[in-house]
Every structure is written in C-alpha cells, then in structure tokens.
C-alpha cells in the first residue's frame, strides 16, 4: 500500500480506544473488529491509482482530524424538534440517527405488526444476537474494501429493519440521518435490513447536515431479501457542501425477491456511493437507479456492481447526473453474469447533462458475461441541453432560464418515475424543481437552518 499516513491516525485511534469502542457497542458488533483492523492495515484506503477509485481521493478526504464520538456523549438535540419532514403528507414512521447514534429517547407510535423490529442496531444486536450474527457483516466484507474495514472497526450503532416471514408493513418507514455538531465530526453508520421470505417493506433514508462544520460519514448498508421478499430502499441525500460521504450498499437477494434501490443526491459536498447487488436466487429482480444534481464544486462518484449468480434474474439500472459549474460526476457500472446464469436480463443506462464547459463527467460501463443465453445492454450518453428545444420554448415566451429548468427537470423525471410511492414521487418532483431553481442550497428540512 502507500505510506499509510491517512490510515495511521485511525489505526492509532483504535489501538488507544478499542476498549471504549467495544464497551459502547454489542458483542455481535465487536466480534469482527480484529479482522476489520487487520483488513484495514492490509488494504489501507483505496488509491486513486486503482481503477475503482480513480476520481475520488479517499485518503485526502480522511486526512483531516475529525472528532469521533467514541464515548457516546449525548448530543444535545431533539431531532423531532429540529427536523421538519421534507416529505409532508407522507405518513411515515419516522426514526433518527444523530451522527452515528440511534435516537431512542422518543419513538414514533408506529403500530408495527408483531415481530417487526425497527430501531437501533446496538440494542437489536444485544437483544437478538443469534439473528444479528447471521447477518451483520455478512454482505459487506471488510476484506474487500478499506473503507468498509474502517467502518466495521469503528461502528458502534446504527439502524435495523427486521421484517419476519410473511409480514407486510404497509406504512413506509423513514430514517433520517442527522449530522449535528459544533466541531468537525466523523460518523461510522450502519444500516441492517433483514427481509425474511415473503415480507414487504419500504424504507426511505434521508441524510441531512444541520451545522456548517465539516462532516465525514462512512455508511455501510446491508440488505438481505429472502425468497419472495419485496423491498424498496430510497436514499435521499440533502446534506451540505462541507459533508463528505462514503456509502457502501450491499444487497443479497434470494429467489423471486424484488428490490428497488433509488439513490438521489440533491445537495452534498463529496459523495461516493457504492452499490453491490447479488442476485442469488432464480427469478429475482432488482431495480437500481439514482440521480444527482450538482453544481459549484460538488462531486458524486457512483460505482455499481450487479452479480447475476443464477439464471432467470432481471436487473434494470438507470443513473442520471446533471452537472453545473465545476461539478464532477463519475459513474462506473459493472454487470457480472456468472457462468450458467442463463436467461439473464440486465439493462444499464447512464445519461448525463453537462451544463457548463467546466463540468466533468466520467462514465464507464463494464459488462462481464460468462453465459451465452442472456439479454444485456448498456447505454451511456453525456451531452448538453437541446438548443432547438430551448429556442422552441423561448419562441413561446418562456425565458431561457425557465426553459433550461423545465428541460433539466424533464431529464431527471424518469429516475423519479421509478419511485413506487406516489407521495414520495410528487414530493421528489417538487424538490428537484426547487433544486434546479437554486432554492435548495440549504437543507430544506431543518427548522434551525438559517
């Protein structure tokens, strides 16, 4: 590896504070730490010299000295007071993670079906160690990626959604990750979703940064969709320009399961989103989509890896980016069809709009197919708004800026159309329009935002 300078402070921190880290976590979470440390020491942060992290300098992002709340000191905030839901009229069961701690001082009256668990990861892993141990860390391996290793080494809490067999949770569940701190802060978050066979649920996760200090998050999301399970995961980032996020989402799907992952970035600083999806049972379907609207120096780097391990599975992938000013976007999408995974259908589309000469988009589709009876396609375009359409609209009296806005909104519309929740869809259309009008420069949801 490189000289490991950026890594050293985390290795030293763990050496000094291992006891504290473990004391404020659970056995299930502590079990993989030693291996995670070894993996982190071996791997270090991914390098820009490697193919997969070419456009994001990970070591640089981790070099500043961020505070980590290892001692689990109370953050004086009641999220239910400061947070105004950005998706009103949507009846959700609302939960919070403040920095990296599940907020349990007040909980929604969710009226959840029997056996369902929605809550903090630490508590869940303490109360249900057998179930937790079967899943925790089993989709996101610390031996593959230094950031996952770091997260596994330091994570102390997070969020769990556990839906038992045959249970359908109608009401969407909303988790809001809030960054709240007076000093530069790092949070290592975990989300664990266990969908037992034939269960159904929808989870909306929103990231917000309330304060103007620098925030850095590592997030590891593990989703297990049992046979016939039906699960939606919506991820809406509306953080801040001084927020850096490294998210790694891992999905394992069994036969006939159906998973939708939709990741939308409306406001951020530097974001790296990794998506790893494994289709391990026949007739499983996955819909992976996302979009980002970027300006100033914002950056979103998307990496996806879909594995078709067995036959008769379908994956649809759609990512769109709109880049203004000096924004930078990257998309790398790998579809891997294993030998014998016949009758696979895998479609990938990446479309990007560069609105200025300075904006940069790097896109790379990668198909690796070892079966001969498959339908696979990929398409990538990067371009500008259609001048003819702009002029046509102007000639009807619509100002150029408004015409640009309408075309940009139209460009991203199909990503939002993939949302399987009508209220959220309507709300996203409005948020996107606000974003393009420049009215969403601050996170729109927090009462204490100036």
């Amino acid at each position, binding site marked *: 590896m490189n000289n490991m300078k950026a890594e050293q402070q985390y290795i030293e921190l763990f050496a000094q504070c291992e006891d504290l880290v473990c004391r404020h976590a659970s056995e299930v979470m502590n079990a993989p730490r030693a291996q995670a440390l070894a993996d982190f020491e071996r791997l270090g942060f991914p390098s820009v010299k490697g193919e997969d992290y070419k456009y994001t300098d990970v070591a640089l992002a981790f070099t500043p000295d961020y505070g980590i709340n290892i001692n689990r000191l109370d953050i004086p905030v009641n999220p239910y007071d400061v947070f105004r839901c950005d998706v009103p009229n949507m009846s959700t069961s609302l939960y919070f993670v403040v920095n990296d701690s599940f907020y349990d001082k007040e909980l929604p009256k969710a009226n959840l079906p029997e056996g369902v668990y929605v809550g903090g990861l630490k508590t869940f892993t303490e109360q249900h160690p057998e179930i937790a141990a079967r899943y925790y860390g089993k989709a996101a391996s610390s031996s593959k990626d230094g950031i996952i290793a770091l997260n596994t080494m330091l994570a102390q809490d997070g969020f769990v959604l556990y839906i038992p067999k045959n249970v359908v949770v109608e009401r969407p569940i909303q988790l809001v990750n809030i960054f709240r701190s007076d000093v530069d802060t790092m949070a290592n978050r975990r989300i664990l979703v266990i969908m037992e066979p034939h269960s159904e649920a929808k989870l909306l996760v929103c990231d917000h940064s309330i304060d103007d200090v620098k925030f850095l998050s590592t997030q590891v999301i593990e989703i297990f969709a049992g046979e016939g399970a039906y699960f939606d995961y919506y991820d809406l980032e509306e953080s801040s320009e001084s927020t850096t996020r490294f998210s790694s989402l891992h999905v394992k799907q069994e036969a006939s399961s159906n998973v939708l992952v939709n990741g939308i970035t409306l406001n951020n600083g530097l974001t790296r989103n990794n998506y790893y999806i494994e289709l391990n049972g026949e007739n499983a379907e996955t819909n992976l989509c996302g979009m980002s609207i970027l300006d100033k120096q914002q950056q979103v780097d998307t990496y996806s890896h879909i594995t078709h391990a067995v036959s008769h599975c379908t994956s649809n992938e759609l990512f769109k980016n709109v880049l203004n000013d000096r924004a930078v976007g990257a998309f790398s999408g790998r579809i891997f069809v294993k030998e014998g995974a016949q009758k696979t259908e895998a479609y990938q589309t990446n479309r990007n709009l560069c609105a200025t000469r300075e904006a940069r988009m790097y896109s790379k589709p990668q198909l690796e197919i070892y079966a001969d009876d498959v339908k696979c396609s990929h398409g990538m375009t990067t371009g500008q708004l*259609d001048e*003819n*359409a702009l*002029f*046509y*609209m*102007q*000639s*009807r*009296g*619509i*100002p*150029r800026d*408004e015409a640009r806005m*309408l*075309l940009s*909104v*139209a*460009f991203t*519309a*199909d990503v939002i159309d993939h949302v399987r929740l009508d209220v959220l869809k309507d709300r996203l259309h409005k948020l996107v329009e606000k974003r393009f009008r420049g009215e969403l420069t601050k996170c729109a949801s927090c009462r204490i935002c100036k």
Partner: protein
Amino acid sequence: MLEIKNLHANVNGKEILKGINLSVKAGEIHAIMGPNGSGKSTLSSVLVGNPAFEVTEGEVTFNGKDLLELSPEDRSREGIFLSFQYPVEIPGVSMVNFMRAALNEHRKYNGQPPVSATDFLKLMREKRAIVELDNKLANRSVNEGFSGGEKKRNEIFQMAMLEPKLAILDETDSGLDIDALRIVANGVNKLRTPENAAIVITHYQRLLDYIKPDVVHVLYKGRIVKTAGPELALELEEKGYDWIKKEMGDE
C-alpha cells in the same frame, strides 16, 4: 404593424437575405412564396430571433418597437408567433406544463396574474377544439411521438392559446394531407380578427385556397422580386417559378 426595411441576414457567414422590404398592417394576410432556397424560412427565423441567424443590415419594427433588439421570448410576448416548419419534440415536458408556463409568461408581461388551474384547463379544452386536437395529445410530452399532421395542428393550437398579433406560418401545409390541411386552415381562419395579421410562407397555391391572402410576395435569392394580389399565386401555380427565374434573367 410590421415594418421590414432593407433586411440583410447571414447564416454560417453566407448572406441569405439581401435587402428585404415588407410592410404588414393589422387585419392583413400576406403570402410569401418562392422556390427552395430563396430565403423564406430564413426570414421567419430572423423575425423570431433564432440565434443561428445573424442580421447584418436593416431594421425591423413591430408596433413601433425595434424588434431586433428584443429577446426571442420578448418577441413572443409582444405578440409574434411562429408556426415552425419542423416543430421540436421535447421529451419529458408535458404539453400542459409547457403551455401553462408560456401563457403565464405572456400574462406576467402584460401585468396579469397567473391563470387559475380551472380556467387554464377550460381554455385548453376550448382551443383544442379549434384544431380538433385529441385530449390524449394534450396530455403527452410536447410533440413527442406526434405524427406530422398532429405536430402542425399542435402549432396552431399553441397559436390559439397565445393569441398573437402577428402569426408567421412557415410551410404549415407541408406534410399535411387534405383533411389535416383543411383543419389547420380552418383553425387559422377562426383565429383571424381585424386586429391581427399573418404571414403565410408556402411553396404552393394549395394552402391559399383555404387561407385567402390579401397580398402575395415572391421571394427569390434573398429579395422580394414581385408583389401583387391573390392572383399572383394562381399565376405562379400555372407558370411555375421558372417564369420568375426567366424574368430575373437567370435562365
């Protein structure tokens, strides 16, 4: 209403219009005919401010205002409307949103409040009937997947919505079958008032059977070479453009 004096214009550095003079008064319909490449579409593009065309000389006033100084959107709000020869498809932007945005911009320009949702839908319904445009089309994205005839009807529908003072119909008859032609022409005639005017650009007499012009001009090599009454169109139909070319000493 419209005064064009000695108008010269280039596209890609090549001079296409070489000194156009034209005067259109309220209530009049002018037909502009001429062979391919004579500059008819360039003239319409210049009048609505298409940035691909560069005016090098001359002036255009519209109701006393210097038209060439106005942005394309302001020309529209002042009451100029171009029915495009090739209407543009705008995937993802619904006709409803598009028309509401356009109408409200016009209203804002005239100091009126935005139109209410009910009034707007009522207006859409009324105006759609003028060109027999299907409700299904009105709910789709602008021009997306429309047939050639539907696109042209959609142009006249937009014209009906915006009620321009001067309508420029750029080969609105091209690509239309007889029925569509009649629907489009009827639409234009229904929208005619003593206060507005129209410039009809066409190759053929056909459209002029339905939309009766007051004045017919022949545009040739960037200049208006002949101006007369409606009988000129009939004469052209009979003799062809070679007759003009001969008269100009080109044959």
